[in-house]
């Protein structure tokens, strides 16, 4: 299965590269791929912050000085302060080039510069976001190749598509199929359609890759884990034997090197410092557990020739040839059906052909609007889950299977309950009788039981 996963991994890489390249080249006409854009954005953000801070500190100091001295500080002091601030300022405030000598200058400079810095920031933000999404997309894509998690695949896909959505929002030239081609072959060979198809193919291939991995990997892991566990177990018992014989055991590093740390049963023992130390001998429980497990496993492997295969579930490994074949046929069917159905939905001619629309709609501009696809998309989309629901109803599906008790078992259970109820009843009856007798005895003061007396005496003391 490893080979299949690798083939699909390469296919995933190819489709992702294709998708990314198409997005890059189709947006290139907008001249947005300035490689300095992220740097510009960061600098603009800091200059904006610097402007805000300069304005705030300058106003605050002036206010404080006025509060303490009783008058507005003169221009020399303000100028001196602002010079000092700007000297020690690493990032020059946006639009401020010289120290200003009074507060009114600072205010007017702030008002005039804030609007321009915000506009610059707005433009830079979009440029930055294209790069950010591209970066996130690539990072998630690389993660998906290693971690084999659908979240990374979905994230990478959405990140790359988000670049186009942002560009569309910014009213840039983005790939579009307007007007929608009425010829199927023209539609198929269109660059935009190829981008959509390659994007879809990326998802399909990546999910197939995850499938191939998740079907084959657990079995391989299982075998590997079992090997490690058995090895760790044997090493632990050998080590214990050596300690018991009084031989020196140099390190306890075996746990890490042989993968015993992945073996919770032993790991627990190691964490409690039981295996591998002289004091360990005192803790007989943990040692005997490890040793007994070793004996149990040895016996099992000796007596049952299939035991090892069953522990590794070797027979469950699926055939690679079948997985490749079914991947190709499954994907081909999905591609063809998706393209055909999408073309039918989006082509206005098909709509006109299928539905006898009233002339008002038929000759209106509404027919060329994207929303018109909802007319067919919603019912057809819902038809698939509905069909599957109907199939589910008709096929035999038991959700929860409860084991039925045999007649004897039921009878035994009933008998047991009856017996407990009887005992409970008897006990309650006896308790009542005892309480009654005690009450009666209390009434006859002369007849005090000597045992009761002894108890009372004991408690009185």
């Amino acid at each position, binding site marked *: 299965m490893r080979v299949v996963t690798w083939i699909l991994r390469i296919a995933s890489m190819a489709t992702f590269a294709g998708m990314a390249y198409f997005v890059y080249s189709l947006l290139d006409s907008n001249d947005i791929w300035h490689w300095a854009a992220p740097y510009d954005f960061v600098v603009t953000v800091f200059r904006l912050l610097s402007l805000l801070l300069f304005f705030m500190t300058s106003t605050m100091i002036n206010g404080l000085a006025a509060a303490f001295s009783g008058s507005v500080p003169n221009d020399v002091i303000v100028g001196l302060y602002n010079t000092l601030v700007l000297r020690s300022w690493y990032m020059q405030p946006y639009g401020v080039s010289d120290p200003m000598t009074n507060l009114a200058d600072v205010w007017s400079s702030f008002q005039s510069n804030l609007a321009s810095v915000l506009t610059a920031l707005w433009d830079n933000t979009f440029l930055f976001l294209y790069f950010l999404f591209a970066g996130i997309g690539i990072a998630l894509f690389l993660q998906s190749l290693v971690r084999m998690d659908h979240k990374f695949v979905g994230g990478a896909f959405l990140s790359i598509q988000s670049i186009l959505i942002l560009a569309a929002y910014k009213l840039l030239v983005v790939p579009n199929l307007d007007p929608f081609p009425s010829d199927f072959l023209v539609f198929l060979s269109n660059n935009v359609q190829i981008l959509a198809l390659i994007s879809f193919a990326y998802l399909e291939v990546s999910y*197939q890759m995850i*499938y191939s991995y998740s079907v084959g990997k657990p079995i391989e892991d299982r075998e590997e884990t079992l090997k490690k566990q058995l090895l760790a177990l044997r090493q632990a018992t050998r080590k214990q034997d050596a300690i018991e014989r009084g031989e020196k055991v140099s390190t306890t590093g075996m746990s890490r090197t042989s993968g015993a740390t992945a073996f919770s049963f032993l790991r627990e023992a190691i964490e409690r410092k039981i295996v591998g130390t002289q004091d360990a001998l005192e803790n007989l429980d943990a040692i005997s557990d490890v040793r007994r497990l070793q004996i149990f496993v040895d016996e099992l492997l000796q007596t049952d020739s299939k035991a090892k295969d*069953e522990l590794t579930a070797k027979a469950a490994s699926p055939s690679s040839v079948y997985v490749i074949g079914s991947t190709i046929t*499954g994907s081909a069917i999905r591609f063809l059906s998706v393209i055909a159905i999408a073309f039918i939905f989006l082509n206005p001619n098909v709509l006109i052909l299928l539905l006898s629309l009233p002339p008002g709609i038929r000759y209106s501009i509404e027919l060329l609007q994207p929303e018109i696809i909802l007319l067919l998309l919603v019912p057809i989309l819902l038809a698939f889950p509905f069909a599957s629901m109907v199939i589910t109803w008709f*096929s035999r599906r*038991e959700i929860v299977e409860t084991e039925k008790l045999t007649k004897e078992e039921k009878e035994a259970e009933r008998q047991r309950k009856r017996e407990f109820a009887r005992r409970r009843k008897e006990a309650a009856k*006896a308790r009542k009788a005892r309480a009654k007798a005690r009450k009666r005895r209390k009434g006859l003061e002369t007849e005090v039981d000597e*045992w009761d007396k002894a108890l009372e005496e004991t408690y009185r003391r």
Partner: protein
Amino acid sequence: MITQRGFVVTFAGVLLLTSGFSFVNFYFILLGVYLLIGLVVTLPLFALTANIAGIEVDRQIDKVKVFSGDFLRIRVTIRNISRRHFDFIEVHDQYPETWILAIGENFIASRIEPGSSIIFSYILQARMRGRYFIGPTEVIMRDRLGFHYYKRTLKAHTEVLVYPTWKDVRRMEALGKQRQLGLMFGAHRTKTVGMGSDFVGFREYVPGDEFRLIDWKTSAKRGDMVIKQFEMEKNIQVICMVDTSGSMGNGYPENTKLEYAIRAAVLLTHIGLERKDLIGTCVFSDIVHSYVPPGTRPNHMYDVLEALAGAEPRGWSDYETAISYVVQQTKKRSFFIWLTDLEESPAPLLNAMKALVANGHKAMVISPFGPWFEAPVGQFGPVEKVLSEAVSEELWERRNKIAQALARFSIPVVNVGPEDFLPTIIKTYEQAKQKGVAMF
């Protein structure tokens, strides 16, 4: 049912569609349609093929009765009895939370062809006595791309009875072997002089002694009449009363007062059976849950283990009911060892003891002292420390009073903690043997 992955694709599809509508862009619409159609197009086919009723799961275990701490292999067989293959099937076989997965894994994910089967196994360590259930087995079937799934729970339960731990017995046997003195190391036999065939010694003749016992040779040597004395080994009858009231469940898990009491009962029964003594066990709280009369049948040990395995700490201790139940069924004089924390009101306890002594039985109480089984005082803050010490003192005072009251009936009370519980029970038994309490 739609999976998380399916929801992600739906979200992406809807996002692209709405973007397409907002920006009048057919590329977004086309991609959105691709995603949504791709999500549902194979759904009817999946529903048709993934008939989960076509999967059969069978679970096999080596033993249904094991000791706590023993290992158990679980084999799970998954069969595809339908005529279709299942692309992705996940099987999770559940096991009790307190048990430990020692070797292997309790789940598998694979594809399964029609008519074929997958077998996997794993090894568990049974922890803590009681009645446990392995299962149910959860089968999840997913489509190839993981957009949809069906779930089914099969083969609900396999019952396993876990006996109390056998490690104390094993340890005692190991100790005996190490000293090379056999299993009976340190044991003292209960002897009755006068009968039997083992020679003890000589004593002076007193009128009324049988003539056949006179040892003529020795008499001739001594010049006085002496008779030969013989002795015979006698066995004793012990009944272990295990209190399973709610308060006995206090303490650390696996180290509660009840667990120690059960371990003590197991050890006592084992030692007794080894020496051919009769040991009975009664498990009680507000009713008698089970009573195994004293006996030496081959299965006696297992009966005791089964009675103790199902003991759960709940209810309150009704000593009177317990004693009346046991006394009714016990004709011979017996030695009763109570394993109880004495946390009920003393009057019923004293009444029970009165009934017991009145019937000619002997008794002693081995009582786990609550605070010694709970969190060590060292772990407490200053306020908790003072409080716990105050509570301990109060309890200790109360216990002393009970002990004084019981002493009047010649019933000793031994307060025990986790460390000395088991040694105390062995010591008690040895002393009973030496003194010849409750011989039969």
